[in-house]
């Protein structure tokens, strides 16, 4: 939000209360923007500001795609072009189809006029789409193309995405140039109508354009911030941070990627309408690769993902070109004359603008990557008290987790895996595996490294779609469903190698866990009706309740970036994130890996208490003490096959298990250990 701006501005005003700073800064900013053309009446400078504002809107649009959703788009100018040409064509003489009764309804709506043909005989259609109508229409049309261009790229990884979007960015101006019947080609459009307001045409007066541009910037800043701080924005950031984890946490990646493309494109299309209306012409050269790159430079310069940052970046870089460079050249020349330096007196910085941009770009990347206004808020360190507070373990007594699990031990089956086989090329990762998890039970899967445990989890949670067989969850076949649908059905998981969203806060991670349980759509996110506010508030309350399982391990850290936390805490966050989705079954992939014995014991107790509340658990674990404490049933996998199953005690005595784990020579030693004791864990081969 405005924190970055106001923090800098407010330093001399430290006596102003914190709560006042943001509204005050915002008010000042708005006042300055509104008053600018009244105070400074130079038409050209107002025009420069309007152009800069248009680029700010473009930067905001690209920021949604690149900054929020992390989809590197190198052809963003394509949408700018689509919006510009759509309005340009529908409000100029470019197309003049012959008049027929077909056009009559459009004439009544004011979309077309009847006009005498140039040739003298008959009448033709003159398109007169209103600017105000064109803004949403062309935004929608650009959004449509955003989806069309986005759809083929969904399966592509970041860099491939970059090259394909670059390709689309090249294709659009070429089509515009070559399809000259539609676009008037390289010569550029003629006679695009200026906007009209209550019958008064804006004409070439730059002040009304300035106000429209500023209003657009304000609107889109508002939309960007609202989206960012909503379920939608969190889903985008989850995709940006870790696509696989996002899917596993219930984010429909296809939908949200396309949504980012569409909304970003809509911003671009809207800017196109504005830009072409102001210029009253458009040429294909206005939308080339340099434009896409420059918009990217603006958001990098301002701060990727930072709403205020990208606006600032756009303004600075645009005004640098149209104002400051000429002035700077002038000052240097004056200085040169004063100090009798011939070189300085004649230096002209204007032709070097691109060189200067190059240095800005490299310099920013090397020395200030987060941009002028970083997207991530500075973290408040924990207070001494918080850091040294007594470590309260969570436990049964504190738990208020109403609505979690609730499945009682009815004997019915929660998860039923039958005859599942997975092959990677020649390698059989799982071979005809059968496994059942009773409702309310705790089932552990153990086995040496490479035995197929994680493959099994990936198959159950939909991260793999190559298996044969059947996986039923409460009687419903789920094999082959996408991850987000599986999570929605109530299967949540953690990952062996931790897949958190590192640059988001603890709270945001837990909120993303609830993604599938929340209903906020784009409109609700922007308008924030009371129902949405209530939903959001409830989501935060629920997250805090989930954190409370871990006592005060996480509660004081909810506002902190995950990346900065300890390993054990990150493990806990991952469990909390999974729990936040209100699962009916929790799949834990080595939840205690990397924890010390005390932490391990603590976590085992916490899992136990969750199970007591009725949560079904399927667990991969190497530490036998944990398995013994928690599990009702243990399955042992080796080379993709179930080699044993039974209670922990039974499995411990199974010879085949011992052989798989320890080899023959170790059998005797292992056999001496008293069954059920935690002191001799199975070797943690999975590490």
């Amino acid at each position, binding site marked *: 939000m405005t924190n970055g701006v106001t923090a800098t501005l407010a330093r001399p005003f430290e006596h102003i209360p914190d709560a006042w700073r943001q509204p005050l800064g915002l008010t000042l900013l708005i006042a300055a923007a509104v008053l600018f053309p009244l105070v400074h009446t*130079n038409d050209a*400078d107002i*025009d420069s500001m309007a152009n800069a504002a248009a680029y700010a809107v473009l930067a905001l649009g690209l920021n949604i795609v690149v900054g929020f959703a992390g989809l590197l788009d190198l052809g963003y100018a394509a949408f700018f072009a689509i919006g510009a040409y759509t309005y340009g064509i529908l409000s100029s003489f470019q197309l003049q189809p012959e008049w027929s009764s077909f056009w009559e309804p459009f004439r009544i709506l004011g979309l077309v006029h009847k006009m005498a043909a140039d040739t003298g005989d008959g009448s033709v259609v003159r398109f007169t789409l209103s600017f105000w109508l064109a803004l949403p229409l062309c935004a929608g049309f650009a959004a449509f193309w955003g989806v069309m261009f986005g759809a083929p790229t969904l399966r592509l990884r970041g860099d491939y995405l970059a090259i394909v979007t670059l390709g689309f960015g090249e294709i659009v101006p070429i089509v515009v140039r070559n399809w000259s019947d539609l676009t008037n080609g390289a010569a*550029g459009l003629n006679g695009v109508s200026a906007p009209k307001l209550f019958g008064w045409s804006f004409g070439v007066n730059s002040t009304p354009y300035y106000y429209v541009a500023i209003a657009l910037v304000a609107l889109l800043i508002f939309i960007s911030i609202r989206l960012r701080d909503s379920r939608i924005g969190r889903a985008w950031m989850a995709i940006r941070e870790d696509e696989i984890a996002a899917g596993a946490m219930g984010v429909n990646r296809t939908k949200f990627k396309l949504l980012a493309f569409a909304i970003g494109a809509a911003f671009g299309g809207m800017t196109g309408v504005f830009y072409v209306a102001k210029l009253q012409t458009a040429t294909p050269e206005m939308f080339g690769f*340099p434009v896409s790159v420059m918009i990217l430079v603006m958001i990098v310069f301002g701060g990727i993902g930072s709403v205020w940052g990208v606006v600032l970046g756009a303004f600075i870089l*645009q005004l640098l070109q149209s104002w400051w460079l000429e002035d700077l050249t002038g000052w240097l020349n004056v200085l040169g004359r004063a100090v009798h330096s011939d070189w300085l007196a004649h230096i002209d910085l204007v*032709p070097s603008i691109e060189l200067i*941009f190059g240095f800005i770009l490299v310099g920013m990347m090397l020395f200030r990557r987060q941009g002028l206004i970083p997207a991530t808020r500075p973290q408040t360190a924990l207070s001494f008290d918080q850091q040294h507070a007594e470590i309260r373990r969570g436990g049964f007594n504190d738990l208020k987790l109403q609505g979690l699990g609730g499945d009682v031990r009815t004997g019915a089956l929660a998860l039923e895996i039958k005859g599942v086989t997975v092959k990677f090329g020649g390698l059989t990762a799982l071979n005809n595996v059968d496994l059942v998890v009773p409702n309310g039970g705790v089932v552990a899967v153990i086995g040496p490294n490479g035995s197929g445990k994680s493959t099994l989890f990936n198959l159950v949670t939909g991260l793999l779609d190559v298996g044969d067989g059947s996986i039923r969850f409460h009687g419903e076949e789920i094999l082959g469903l996408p991850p987000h649908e599986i999570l929605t059905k109530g299967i949540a998981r953690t990952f062996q190698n931790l897949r958190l969203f590192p640059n988001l806060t603890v709270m945001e991670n837990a909120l993303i866990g609830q993604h599938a349980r929340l209903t906020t759509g784009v409109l609700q996110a922007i308008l924030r009706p009371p129902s949405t506010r209530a939903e959001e508030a409830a989501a935060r309350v629920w997250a805090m309740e989930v954190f409370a399982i871990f006592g005060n391990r996480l509660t004081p850290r909810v506002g902190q970036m995950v990346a900065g936390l300890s390993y054990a805490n990150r493990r806990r966050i991952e469990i909390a994130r999974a729990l936040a989705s209100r699962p009916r079954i929790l799949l834990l992939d080595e939840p205690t890996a990397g924890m010390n014995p005390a932490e391990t014991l603590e976590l085992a107790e916490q899992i136990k208490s969750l199970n007591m509340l009725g949560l079904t658990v399927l667990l991969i674990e190497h530490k036998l003490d944990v398995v013994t404490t928690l599990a009702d049933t243990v399955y042992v996998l080796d080379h993709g096959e179930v080699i044993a199953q039974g209670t922990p005690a039974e499995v411990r005595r199974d010879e085949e298990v011992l052989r798989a784990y320890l080899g023959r020579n170790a059998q005797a030693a292992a056999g001496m250990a008293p069954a059920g004791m935690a002191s001799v864990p199975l070797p943690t081969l999975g590490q």
Partner: protein
Amino acid sequence: MITRRAAARLLAGTTATAALGAGLSPVLAADKVIKIGADLSLTGADAEGATRVKDGIIMAVDAANQGNAVPGYTFELLTLDDGTATAGQYDPAQAATNARKMVSDQDVVAAIGPQMSGAGKAMAPILSQGDLATITPSSTNPDITNPKFAEQYRPAGKPIYFRTVTTDAFQGPNMANYMAEKLNIKSVYVLDDSGAYGVGLADAYQAQIEKKGVKVLGRDRLDPKAADYMTVLTKIKALNPEALYYGGVGQAGIKLAKQAYDIIPNTIKAGGDGVYGASFLIGTGFPAADGWYATIASPHLTADTKAANFVKAFTDRFGVAPEDYSITAYDAALVIIDAVKRVAASGKPVTRSAVRDAIQTAKVPTIQGIVSFDANGDLADRTVSVFQIKKDTSAKLDDISAQYHYIDVAPQV
């Protein structure tokens, strides 16, 4: 903002003082300064050409100041760059901003530019509202001066967009006439370079040559940033047309000429003023440049030494040969200076509106002959001169006057 403007004023003052101190112009301190605006694409791919254009204007303005062409007035150039790093080349939005800068500076009485039609389309309505005339040395798209679009490009009524260069509507078709009637070609292949100038020229050429009954065997478009035109030339070779017409500027033209020499050496090759100039000669080199036909949209004054003198003076001063558009820009400046002179002589105040009216009635002897304008602002004289490159080893290989041999005036449409 205030500091910015104050600094600009200070700067203007310093410039004038420095000019006096250096003794560059023998003017009286009481001289009224009038500004000529210039909107050129000084950044990006076209920067070098724009600099030549600017140099041409500087030649005319300095000469006027030194020769005290208009007693009581000193000319100053307000050069604005319409190229931006954002567009990587000329940017119509910046051109529009520049038009506003000129309009809002009351000392600017007339302008030169822009170079590109796309920029011109964005500037014309603003200039019209500001009643500020501009003379373009190089933008040839006919739309801007077409009466059909008057409502769009001169909303205030009077023409404000003048040209010291013929529009595509004449240069291409006249050359088509020449090739059909004088070279008697029966078939042709037409190429353009994707730019507004090139596409417009090639379109106009193609329309006329088809009317003349010459078979157009194909039409294609070159990517000026690409290097390899062998593919399209191979295709042309297979079609075996008698002639190749290229509408476009030197950037793609040079590469085309080089590769065409290898692949279709015996085909007649022709272009517009984009292939007329020292940079085309230098870049293409001989023997590849040999035999190309080029046109310029003005009469060729054989007996006149003005052009040769200008080329020499220009080369001496700037160290490079002038481009064709240096000449048209120089001429544009001459027209403006002459208009100011006539207004001043008539005793009326030198206002934009008076200067515009004076430009409209101009009859100015320039390097390209007598310049006068029709009612729309286009050149009244629509002569298109045809040249052919023939290597003349006795002269420098980049000497336009030696290497381009004047042939004839192309038959008018």
